[in-house]
């Protein structure tokens, strides 16, 4: 038996910052602000899914999404593709591509109809640089009284292409997560670990290694080549029907130039018939050192000293641009039609001192540490 379903979002975003782009994930090359005054690329997407039930226990799933890709194209990519074997009502194993359960809304984040907001808060949801895994997962549900718990474990690898030509590779990537549901309360705990390589930064640190022992020492500290990433997250949602309160916190450490960051948000909304106005506060802090003296250029011959200074500048620009920001968002969801909602959201983001926050494509004249106003309108559907 085959079941088809689809979802999508048609959205447009305006940013007050004209010298940088705001976008919604780490894989998009541009967005609202510098590239487009009003960008349809931040949130718009369409996805389709087929599930084939092969036997009562075995099923196959494929979900493809068309959205702005790393190279600006809209060629559909496969988001999920796996075979699932359901051993019992409470235990299953999937083999293939799965989306990682890092946060409360990670696995369903593309189906904006299921979220209260236009998009999950960027502060927390930008914390983990990987979002899917080719390998598999297992799921085991436990029931005791009114408490239902679902343990999920994932293991796999992932390769992704980044805007500007770089690639990201994650190896030995695993997750263990627990989702606890008790009446109106849902809680989610996650630990995730993997070894990551970011190719274009690795090239930069290759240049450091030509400066002997001091260059090697810097590269050993900062080169994101097969380096351990760890993430711990905890979140909870209370939703008795007419209102909701959601809070999530996470901390990630990538043993490289990208360092350590911690983020959280809290959001509340109230349902008035078909309208659900909401208010969210989110914060992201980079907690590693933001500068490094780098190579000692004074001990080098003039020709090499110039190169060393250039490399030091590149290193410090990466350390200095670690995302740090706070956002207050206010918006509303309107359930316009059966299966269709319309959302309007205003975000006011204060960038941390010296930081561009999560903005990309920084242009000459861009001021760090400023304030950015975002205005978003989105129509979401499921079918």
């Amino acid at each position: 038996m085959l079941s088809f379903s689809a979802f999508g979002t048609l959205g447009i975003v305006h940013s007050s910052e004209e010298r940088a782009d705001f976008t919604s994930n780490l894989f998009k090359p541009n967005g609202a602000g510098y590239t487009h005054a009003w960008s349809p690329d931040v949130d718009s997407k369409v996805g389709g899914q087929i599930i084939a039930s092969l036997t009562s226990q075995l099923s196959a799933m494929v979900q493809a999404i068309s959205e702005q890709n790393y190279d600006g194209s809209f060629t559909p990519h496969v988001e999920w593709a796996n075979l699932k074997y359901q051993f019992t009502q409470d235990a299953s194993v999937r083999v293939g591509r799965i989306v990682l359960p890092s946060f409360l809304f990670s696995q369903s984040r593309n189906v904006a109809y299921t979220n209260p907001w236009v998009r999950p808060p960027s502060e927390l949801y930008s914390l983990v640089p990987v979002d899917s895994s080719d390998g598999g997962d297992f799921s085991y549900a436990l029931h005791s009284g009114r408490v239902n718990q679902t343990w999920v474990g994932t293991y796999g690898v992932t390769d992704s292409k980044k805007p500007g030509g770089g690639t990201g590779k994650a190896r030995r990537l695993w997750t263990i997560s627990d989702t606890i549901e008790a009446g109106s309360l849902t809680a989610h705990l996650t630990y995730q670990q993997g070894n990551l390589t970011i190719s274009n930064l690795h090239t930069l640190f290759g240049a450091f290694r030509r400066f002997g022992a001091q260059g090697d020492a810097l590269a050993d500290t900062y080169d994101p080549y097969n380096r351990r990433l760890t993430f711990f997250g905890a979140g909870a949602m209370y939703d008795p029907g007419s209102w909701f309160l959601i809070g999530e916190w996470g901390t990630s450490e990538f043993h490289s130039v990208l360092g350590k960051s911690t983020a959280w948000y809290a959001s509340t909304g109230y349902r008035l018939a078909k309208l659900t106005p909401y208010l969210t506060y989110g914060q992201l802090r980079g907690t590693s050192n933001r500068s490094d003296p780098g190579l000692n250029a004074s001990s080098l011959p003039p020709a090499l000293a110039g190169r060393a200074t250039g490399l030091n500048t590149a290193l410090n620009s990466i350390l200095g641009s670690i995302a740090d920001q706070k956002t207050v968002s206010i918006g509303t969801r309107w359930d316009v039609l059966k299966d269709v909602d319309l959302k309007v959201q205003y975000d006011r983001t204060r960038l941390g001192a010296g930081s561009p926050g999560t903005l990309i494509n920084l242009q000459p004249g861009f001021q760090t540490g400023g304030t950015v106003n975002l205005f978003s309108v989105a129509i979401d559907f499921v079918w």
Partner: protein
Amino acid sequence: MKIRSLLATVASALLSVGGNAAAADIVAVVSSASAITELSKAQISEIFLGRVSRFPNGALAVPIDQEEGSQARDEFYLAYTGKSPAQLKAHWAKIVFTGRGQPPKAVPNSSEIRRLLAANPQAIGYLERSAVDSSVRVLIQP
């Protein structure tokens, strides 16, 4: 005396979860051949939201829905789960698009519910009280 009973009504309405007063005529039912006689509102809600797949006695539970857009369905979910049609849609979209399950099978009317319940003692459904007959058992809520 009248004021006191009015206050009691207001207080119970304020304290009740998810507005159960509006849907007094929707009842949860199983086949009269089923061994299940009582289920709490929370247990019924968890079966219909796909959070549990068994009755408290361990038997498999097969929820059957009324058609989307039907008044019985909207009233049932509001009363038992506190969810509006859009919230229910979002609940299932989250499950479907993460490959974790499918919503209950839906049928167009109450006679279809009764027919499916008669054919399957594991099935559980809901009906307007006026549509209840001897083929089904109304679940007692402790």
